[in-house]
């Protein structure tokens, strides 16, 4: 039962992130949503590692660690892009950033 | 001597036994039969609370002592007396009761929240600041058998919690709605992020050699005599200095106290805080400083080990706190000696000197571990660490920047 609860929590967190990514138009908030979704993914990895038949293989843990590292890189690059977009277009609203030339 | 060594543990056992006896007596008296898990639960809670209360009391006493001794030591280094007035009736006690007076003053001051402040964040910032600071000391081994929490990845715990003070600094600076606060907070965050890298790198060097992230294992690896302490190896000496400098920066101590530099930023992120909240910030800063010094003792100065076997009649926890006191004194000493950095100097120092040096000490430690022969190990690791030091020290800071001629708007 505990695994299902954890998975449900992770699903809700994922949907909260999805809600931000779909409905908010501020690029930073979209990025926040993506981070939440990645967190939900990590929670799934850990939950499956905890309840797996062979926890000593560390598969879920390794996935989670790599995912955290990649999420950090993603956040850094994403925010750098947002700052660059803001510098060129004077806005961080993704609906207004619709030009292909900078 | 054995008695002194065991005193803290014996006290804990005594309290636990007393609580157990009291519970049993109360049960017998009232006729309630307490289930086994009930007694066990009570004792578990008491044991946890004992440790928490002890840590908090010890660190607060150290904070109080430090706040007065720092002023006295600083004064002595500047040929003054320092605070020597506050005492008890006609006994002056060298002014050691000054923290009591300071505390009363802080607590009775008006708590001012600026009208434009974000009230919730402004209220939460001191709490976010002090909570991790009080959690930091939990993994430091204070003596034999005196580790509050034995965590396999204790060093990681320490740095993970230490990183969260940045958040509190930002919250304090941003919520005050004051440009000096925001600028001070930004400086503080830039400083903490920059110096966290060499801090963690120099701790990783020790973890590499000791083969463990557990503070207790690291201390045990330095047992025996002073020659086994990591500070007495080339890589360890360099890593220890790097850790010390980064600790100064992380604790916002002089010469890295520019986030709250009074002369240019009023008081940085603390500008809009008064009374009790200010006292909490102050306390968190000092507790954080003691914790990071405790970590330095654990990683490089042999933790609770005596410097020589014949000195081990002094209890282990005395050695730990003695080393801690020396480090705290040395931080005041540095404060009395060095002037404050400028922000660009500070960042350049971090990125151009500290981080390359921490990589050098990492390589040097690897050479130490895998060269086999002791003489070869010494020579190799000294060279690997010494050459970058000389090169960086020569060319990073001695370059004189050409200063542009100042242009005047009106006078020309």
């Amino acid at each position, binding site marked *: 039962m505990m695994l299902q609860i954890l998975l449900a929590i992770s699903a809700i967190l994922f949907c909260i992130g999805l809600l931000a990514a779909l409905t908010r138009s501020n690029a930073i908030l979209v990025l926040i949503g993506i981070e939440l979704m990645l967190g939900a993914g990590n929670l799934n990895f850990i939950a499956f590692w905890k309840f797996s038949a062979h926890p000593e293989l560390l598969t879920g843990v390794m996935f989670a660690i790599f995912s955290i590292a990649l999420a950090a890189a993603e956040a850094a690059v994403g925010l750098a892009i947002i700052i660059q977009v803001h510098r060129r277009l004077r806005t961080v609203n993704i609906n207004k950033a619709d030009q292909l030339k900078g | 001597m054995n008695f002194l060594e065991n005193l803290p543990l014996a006290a804990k056992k005594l309290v636990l036994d007393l609580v157990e006896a009291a519970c049993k007596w109360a049960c017998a008296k009232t006729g309630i039969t307490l289930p086994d898990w009930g007694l066990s639960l009570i004792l578990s809670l008491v044991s946890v609370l004992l440790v928490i209360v002890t840590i908090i009391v010890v660190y607060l006493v150290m904070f109080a002592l430090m706040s007065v001794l720092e002023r006295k*030591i600083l004064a*002595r*280094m*500047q*040929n*003054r*007396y320092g605070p020597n007035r506050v005492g008890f009736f006609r006994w002056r006690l060298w002014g050691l009761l000054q923290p009591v007076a300071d505390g009363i003053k802080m607590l009775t001051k008006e708590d001012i929240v600026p009208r434009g402040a974000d009230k919730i964040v402004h209220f939460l910032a001191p709490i976010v600041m002090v909570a991790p600071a009080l959690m930091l000391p939990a993994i430091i081994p204070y003596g034999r058998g005196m580790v509050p929490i034995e965590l396999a990845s204790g060093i990681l715990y320490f740095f993970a919690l230490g990183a969260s003070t940045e958040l509190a600094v930002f919250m304090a600076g941003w919520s005050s709605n004051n440009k000096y606060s925001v600028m001070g907070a930004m400086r503080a965050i830039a400083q903490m992020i920059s110096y966290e890298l060499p801090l963690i790198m120099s701790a990783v060097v020790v973890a590499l050699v000791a083969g463990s992230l557990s503070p207790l294992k690291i201390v045990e690896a330095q047992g025996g005599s002073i020659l086994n302490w990591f500070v007495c190896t080339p890589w360890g000496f360099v890593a220890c200095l790097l850790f010390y400098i980064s600790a100064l920066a992380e604790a916002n101590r002089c010469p890295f106290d520019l986030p709250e530099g009074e002369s240019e930023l009023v008081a940085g992120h603390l500008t809009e805080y008064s009374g009790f909240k200010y006292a909490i910030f102050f306390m968190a800063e000092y507790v954080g400083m003691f914790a990071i010094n405790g970590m330095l003792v654990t990683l490089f100065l042999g933790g609770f080990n005596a410097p020589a076997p014949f000195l081990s009649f002094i209890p282990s926890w005395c050695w730990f706190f003695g080393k801690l006191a020396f480090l705290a004194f040395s931080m005041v*000493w*540095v404060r*009395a*000696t*060095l002037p404050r950095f400028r922000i660009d100097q500070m960042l350049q120092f971090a990125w151009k000197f500290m981080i390359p040096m921490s990589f050098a000490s990492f390589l040097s430690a690897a050479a130490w571990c895998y060269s086999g022969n002791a003489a070869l190990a010494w020579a190799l690791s000294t060279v690997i660490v010494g050459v970058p*030091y*000389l090169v*960086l*020290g*020569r060319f990073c*800071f001695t370059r004189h920047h050409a200063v542009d001629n100042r242009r005047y708007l009106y006078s020309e």
Partner: protein
Amino acid sequence: MNIPGSGILKGMAVTALNFVGSFLDRAHAKRLITEQYPEERPTLPEASRSFPFLIFDGNPETGIRCVACKICEKECPPQCIYIVQDKDANGKAIRRPKVFDIDISVCMGCQICVEVCPFESIRMDNIYEVSSYDRFSALVVSKDKLLKSNEYYHQIHPTEADATDARIEAARVKKTATAKAAAEKAAAAKAAAAAKAAEEKAAADQAAAATTTQPEQPAQ
């Protein structure tokens, strides 16, 4: 070769020596120059001044120099002096103050009252422990508190007091001299006047005699 970082060590050595030295050579005058105030009091320099006081010679009742001329009251820039002239039983003004108050919370220590006093009676004190819990009445100093002996003045400002005494003495000498001269002059004048009067009288007598005889002459 200059090793990087050696400068820091030198600086640390200096502060460490200060630290140790401040405990060891306590007697050395150059170190720890802080004066522990309530126990150790500074010897004030002679020229130091704080608030004005009134000088009396001998007896505070009779020896008071002030004559209630009110020049200082008029000259005082912050107007902190208040003077009422004394009167005798008949309601005639006498040259002595009945009330002399200085509000030292207003006084700015400018010493102008001292400069303008023609009777050398007001001078600057060097007291500095005058704080009180009362903002108003405790800081208005009345005549009986202001009056201090000339000896006290000699104690706090010896040079200045000597100069003042010399001036008073000179003035007194001059005054007695002028008085004597005036008296002599007056006596001389009186004598002269008497002589003149006698002369005039004699002349008048002569004239009278002449006139008594004279009218006869035109009659002739």
